[in-house]
């Protein structure tokens, strides 16, 4: 298909001399077209990642903040022993939130992919939270979960909940916030996975006297497993670096690793430690993706973005 496009885009009615000139153009044009965007990504995405790795093995003067590379790898064991607990907590919160979102949104994406009539409308509905600023969305959760507010206040007045019950400033509030805020990152890959299941396979299973339940557990579910894992990774990785939910909804005992990185970068500059923490986070992400392609290799995770 691409062969056709290329020859006919350039060739067509033009004379042969022109055509030879265009062969050079053809090899160059993808780079000319994509070049600016690629350059931007290389300079402002890849190079900074390298800078960050190098910052993590530098030593900085605590007064002038001037840093130089000393190949000092000591920051890694340091931050791991100091913030190991925070790391575990971040993974726990992000993991729980991701599982909750997966379970909550799977039936809905299934419904949209297989039964809903206006798919585009419902897909848009999945994105509705994105129409409100992230920080405001999280604040709205603070209003929902506050002790005196509509939800808990009413339940307490009805004596469903004890008077001293609270959610805000606990891990559960942070998990609820993350689960809500990152939902589209789970739901869209899930939808992509379910939508691309070949309907004829379902048809075949019905022809072979499968009931709805059997067709679901033996056909739909196995086929959607790569998508489920992709959705998990695409939610879990960004969520484990989140710090806004922990700041707004959590208390001092619910800090996540993002809060530490943010403080160490912006409030009390300790660039090597902050970079070491970010590098660890990044490596975890890469390990996750590598594991994914190892286990579910046949399809790449990139298809689900």
């Amino acid at each position, binding site marked *: 298909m691409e062969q056709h496009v290329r020859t006919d885009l350039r060739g067509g009615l033009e004379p042969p001399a022109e055509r030879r000139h265009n062969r050079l153009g053809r090899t160059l044009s993808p780079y000319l077209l994509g070049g600016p965007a690629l350059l931007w990504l290389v300079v402002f995405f890849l190079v900074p990642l390298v800078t960050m790795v190098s910052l993590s093995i530098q030593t900085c003067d605590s007064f002038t903040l001037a840093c130089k590379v000393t190949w000092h790898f000591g920051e890694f064991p340091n931050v791991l022993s100091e913030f190991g607990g925070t790391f575990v907590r971040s993974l726990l919160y992000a993991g729980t939130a991701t599982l909750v979102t997966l379970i909550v949104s799977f039936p809905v994406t299934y419904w949209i992919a297989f039964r809903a009539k206006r798919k585009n409308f419902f897909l848009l509905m999945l994105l509705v939270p994105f*129409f409100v600023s992230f920080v405001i*969305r999280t604040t709205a959760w603070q209003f929902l979960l506050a002790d005196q507010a509509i939800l808990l206040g009413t339940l307490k007045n009805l004596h469903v909940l004890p008077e001293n019950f609270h959610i805000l400033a606990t891990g559960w509030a942070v998990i609820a916030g993350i689960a809500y805020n990152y939902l589209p990152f789970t739901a869209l890959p899930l939808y992509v996975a379910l939508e691309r299941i070949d309907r004829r396979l379902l048809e075949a299973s019905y*022809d072979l006297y499968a009931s709805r339940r059997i067709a679901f557990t033996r056909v739909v579910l196995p086929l959607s497993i790569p998508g489920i894992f992709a959705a998990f990774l695409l939610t879990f990785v960004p969520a484990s670096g989140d*710090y806004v939910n922990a700041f707004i909804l959590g208390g001092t005992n619910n800090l996540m690793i993002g809060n530490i990185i943010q403080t160490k970068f912006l409030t009390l500059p300790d660039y090597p430690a902050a970079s070491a923490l970010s590098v660890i*986070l990044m490596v975890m*992400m890469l390990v996750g*993706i590598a594991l994914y392609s190892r286990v579910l290799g046949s399809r790449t995770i990139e298809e689900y973005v």
Partner: protein
Amino acid sequence: MSTLAESPSIPTAKELSPVPRDSRRKWTYFVLPIYSSFFFLYLVIPISVMILYSFNVSRSALPQVTFKWQGFTTQWYHEWNGIPGLTPAFFLSIKLALIVTVISAILGTLLALSLVRYQFRGKGATNQVLFANIAAPEIVLGASLLGFFITLNLNRGFSTLLIAHVMFCVAYVTITVRARLSGFDPMLEQAAQDLGATPWVTFWKVTLPLIFPGILAGALLAFALSIDDFVTSNFVSGKTITFPLWVYGAVKVGIPPQVFVLGTAIFLAGVILAVVNLVFQGRKRVSSAAAEE
């Protein structure tokens, strides 16, 4: 994300999947739709909280939204401009988002064109970079960019915000436009060429109009991402304050109701744009179906 740009040419499940043997509509048939409506309710509840509390009465000297409902007022809509520092931050965010949208829409569309139309060295690597950019935790993007700017001794401000926002928007535009482009019939371009159109004319008269909905969706996404961004902006903004940064700073001291008013305004603008887009696509589908008959 790319799913939004695809035109709904895929037949609905109903047309394709056969009705299983026991097609009597039992009560179980309604479990999924009912669950889904509760789910969408869950999605819009926090948004309704924002809209509702933008009408809440506040009696303190410095107006703040309280958790407790104190009565209905439209006062904050009249005084939306009343908080020093908030309005400039709001307009700064809009200006930033507009510039970011234009730059990343152009760069992203060109990259998508080169990815779909050409085979070239480094194509696989490019795809991986795009994916890594989208999957990376935002804090890593922000922190590494800050480290980069510090190493270069660059002052942080509007320009570094612009750089950062284009950096995380361009990949989203690329994948959205790419999704639209890959469902595109290359015969249409061939036909234009057969009728004597130059490549340039073909691009403007055939390719661009056809992929325009994809570009529009990508641009809308870029605008939304930019105007809402907090994490990356927090790292690279220096002393410049955008709308989300201002709100974050106010969270622990108390949020003035105007924040919810402006948040509601952004939300409504987004909804209107999305609905217009949806109706526009729907109408085109109807007219093309009519043309086929």
